[in-house]
């Protein structure tokens, strides 16, 4: 007898915030990298994570991507439980961390097409994503290993666009970009938000990222604090 695969449905998706963490704790090697993070982010927001190195910003992004298991507390992304439904979260999330996730021996077009193809995107969508990030034209067929750091970063962002990510988790996205590239990135993020995406960005470039963000939250010693909010 055929059994229909059970597709998990998030409870009341429309009402749920995109990111909802409640006293979330994550532990790596016995060390609590997140020590009770509480955060709520609505659809279409750009939120800046601010904090010193080692404060837990990257861990927070990895938890939201479903890569870091939640040890205590609770959390959900798009209404899907971070403890039990991580597989349902991942296809809707795009994480750009310290590494770009690109294949150095493939061209820009081949990389963007590959990542787009994982969600069924067409070559035309890949071309459009490359065009938005300025890695089309003469860069289209250049192998990624021959690109500058900034061009690699833009290619990685084009992959996120091609993957149709709904929640963008960006760790130091401005690193390695020149002034024009940073402006382009800001434009892409605003455009992504305009088309319904939500952005959580960790950055040390407070002036630039701060002007882009709707809201700034501090991450200190694995805990999240909102400036001005009562604790």
């Amino acid at each position: 007898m055929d059994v229909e695969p059970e597709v998990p449905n998030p409870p009341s998706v429309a009402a749920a915030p995109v990111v909802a963490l409640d006293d979330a704790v994550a532990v790596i090697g016995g060390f609590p990298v997140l020590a009770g993070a509480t955060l709520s982010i609505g659809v279409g927001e750009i939120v800046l994570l601010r904090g010193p190195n080692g404060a837990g910003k990257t861990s927070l992004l990895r938890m939201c991507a479903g890569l870091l298991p939640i040890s205590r507390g609770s959390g959900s992304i798009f209404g899907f439980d971070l403890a039990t439904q991580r597989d349902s979260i991942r296809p809707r999330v795009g994480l750009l961390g310290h590494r770009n996730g690109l294949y150095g021996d493939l061209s820009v077009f081949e990389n963007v097409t590959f990542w787009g193809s994982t969600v069924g995107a067409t070559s035309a969508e890949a071309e459009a994503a490359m065009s938005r990030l300025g890695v089309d034209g003469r860069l289209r067929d250049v192998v990624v290993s021959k690109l500058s750091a900034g061009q690699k970063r833009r290619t990685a962002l084009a992959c996120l666009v091609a993957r149709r990510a709904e929640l963008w988790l960006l760790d130091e996205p401005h690193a390695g970009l020149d002034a024009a590239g940073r402006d382009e990135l800001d434009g892409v993020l605003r455009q992504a938000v305009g088309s319904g995406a939500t952005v959580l960005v960790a950055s040390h470039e407070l002036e630039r990222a701060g002007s882009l963000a709707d809201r700034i939250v501090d991450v200190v010693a694995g805990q999240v604090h909102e400036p001005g909010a009562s604790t």
Partner: protein
Amino acid sequence: MNRWRIARLIAGKDLRIERRSKVLTNQVLPFAGVTMVMFAFALDASNLLERVAPGLIWLATLFSLLVLVQRSFSIEGEDGALDALRVAGVDPVAVYWGKSIALGVQLAVLEVMLLIAAVLLYGAEVPLGGVVLLLTTLVTATCGLACVGTLYGGLTAGFTGRETLLPLLVLPVVAPVLIGATRAVESALGTGGVALSEGWPWIGLLAVFAVAFGVGGALAFGPLIEEAT
């Protein structure tokens, strides 16, 4: 996208990277060739070489397998692509099958080259009657080796010292393939007067091994890379 399409996508990507980087042709094949020549130096007696040629082919294949597996997962690890595949929610079973297929294609090319090297260097002969058994051995052994290589490549991908850990884990596991494939090729080549019919039971062992790791590996790969990376 369905699982099979993703697997083809992954396999195509790996083979395109290989075609562009030429690691197989410029590094792995010469390494395997040098290994065969070194065996010839070490066992410098023509009768003995012809007798042990099947075993040497598979030993050289296993050593080269380790290099290919390291390469297969280093392209995923260099810029965090394996992590990115996980974040993208790409089906780990499809990743496993895709990477196994790409590895299998490269192994098949390698094995054919090693067989030619054995004919040229060791004076091995391939009788027409043994061709079917020989091809069946190559196919079943390649499937098993590709599946084991991909499984353990994924397992060690996130570990420090994976270059030394991988041979330690893989070589004992593939011992049945070494034994079965060597015996089957001995029968196919008629080495030492072994009858052709004696080779077929070994194909059964190779097939069981390939199916066990093809199915078991696909089930285990997801949880393993989840823990390893």
